[in-house]
């Protein structure tokens, strides 16, 4: 039975690469028939793998935990602005296209998203 949810907004603890304890921000929004999963990098508040480094594993963990259909999720990576003057710590949003091979997600492909695009998707 599918997990009945329309909205989740929480910290999410997961097993990162080599099972290292890891944490991210997690928002799940159901719209129409699709679940939009937004994982947010927590930097120093994440003791383990970054959300980019283990996105396939993270996506699978979220799908399993919330009983989401692998074919009907739209996975978004959110790296927030760290408030640094260095450009590589600016906020970024990416849609990650993951291939479901029947047992696990693999082959991540990233597609940059603007905030406007994100809002259009989930609002």
């Amino acid at each position: 039975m599918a997990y009945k949810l329309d909205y989740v907004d929480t910290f999410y603890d997961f097993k990162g690469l080599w099972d290292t304890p890891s944490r991210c921000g997690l928002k799940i929004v159901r719209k129409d028939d699709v679940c939009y999963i937004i994982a947010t990098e927590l930097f120093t508040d994440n003791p383990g793998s970054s959300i980019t480094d283990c996105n396939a594993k993270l996506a699978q963990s979220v799908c399993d935990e919330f009983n989401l259909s692998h074919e009907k999720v739209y996975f978004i990576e959110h790296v927030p602005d760290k408030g640094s003057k260095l450009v590589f710590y600016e906020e970024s949003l990416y849609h990650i296209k993951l291939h479901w091979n029947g047992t696990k997600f693999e082959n991540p492909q990233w597609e940059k998203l603007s905030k406007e695009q994100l809002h259009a998707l989930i609002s």
Partner: protein
Amino acid sequence: MIKFRLIYPKWEKLEGQTIFNLPPHGPVVFAAALPPDVDVEFTDENVEELVYDDSVDFVGISMMLTTQIMRGWEIADEYRRRGKKVIFGGISTMLHAEETMEHADSIFLGEAETRMEQVFEDFKNNKLQKVYNFMGKHPDITLIGPARRDILKKDLYYHKGVRMVDLFHASRGCKFNCYPCAVSYLGGRCFRPRPIEKAIEELETIDNNRLFIVDNSLAQDKQWEMDLFKEMIPLKKKWCSHTIEDKPEVLDLAAQAGAWFVYQAIFDTSDFIRERVKRYHDHGIAVEGTILLGMDNQTEDDIKRLVDFLLEIDLDLAEFTVLTPFPHTKTFDDMRKENRILHYNWNQFNAGKVVIQPKHMSPERLQELYHYAWDTFYKEESQTEKMFKLFSKVVQKEIADGTFRHRRHNMATSSFGKEIKRNN
């Protein structure tokens, strides 16, 4: 006794880098964690030729750099062809774990202390596990004892009779998680200082007066750092290290404890950097700048301005590298997302060869600017001359406090175990 052959694979040096070979640190720290019934023989392929020895029971390959891994795999393939079991460990094994598994009977991920008894017991019982995964499970920092520097063939680390520095660490982990760095993945996102008495106990065992303190950054806990320096003063060691706190009270103690020079990342031309370098200099501590080229905020003009700035601030030495996306770093994450990694030939990931598409120029132009930076900085005074000045400073300090040791005259015509040709 288990006859264990520990190998440190060779790598190609960075263009422009000094010819010096320092005794490696990872293997000697690892060797200290071996059970007593293991007879370890160490080969550093950077200073000696590797001869495949069929009389060994078990082979370990310790790798620090990404540029060592392909050679490490080659060595493992040959030993396995000869029927020997091979285990990999070390920093770059952790960074390249999945690929390395294809060349290994076993890989060890994490820190070795208290874990080697299990590994060798499994080896003896022919039950070696494919992966020993201790990532994120750090051993009690108080259990880290002195490294086993006795496994090093010390005569191989001399250049013209002058002994190279020995490497030492007083802490693990790092709280900073900098953009191009993998330390937070490797050693955790928290600073783990060794108890001062343990660090001092190890320092007392090192028969070399010149050291490289290889901690990621000593500037993570001011009180611990000051306590460490205070306790180091009587040892009269002379040392270089990565960044230390630049507060006057810390620098004063560091200088008394023998700070010779520090590595300092220089990423812009700000007064912040200028003043920091001046503060080190005011305390008699030299500065080797580590300068990363090809960041997304750097145009060609920025790079040229940065090189001019380095000359203005009277930096003692500079080491230039190009931004390189090592696995499990934010740089790698970002470059992968943007499809900007040109290839995955790990031998080229030496931070001297451009392997990414820079944001503001072509890869070829960045490569040219890398050479421009080295050439321009060392135009008026060569790297050898600048290093000699730095070396003279430490000799003066040693003469002043009575710790100076003459170079070994019987080794004056050799460099890292090889005779120097007369016309060189």
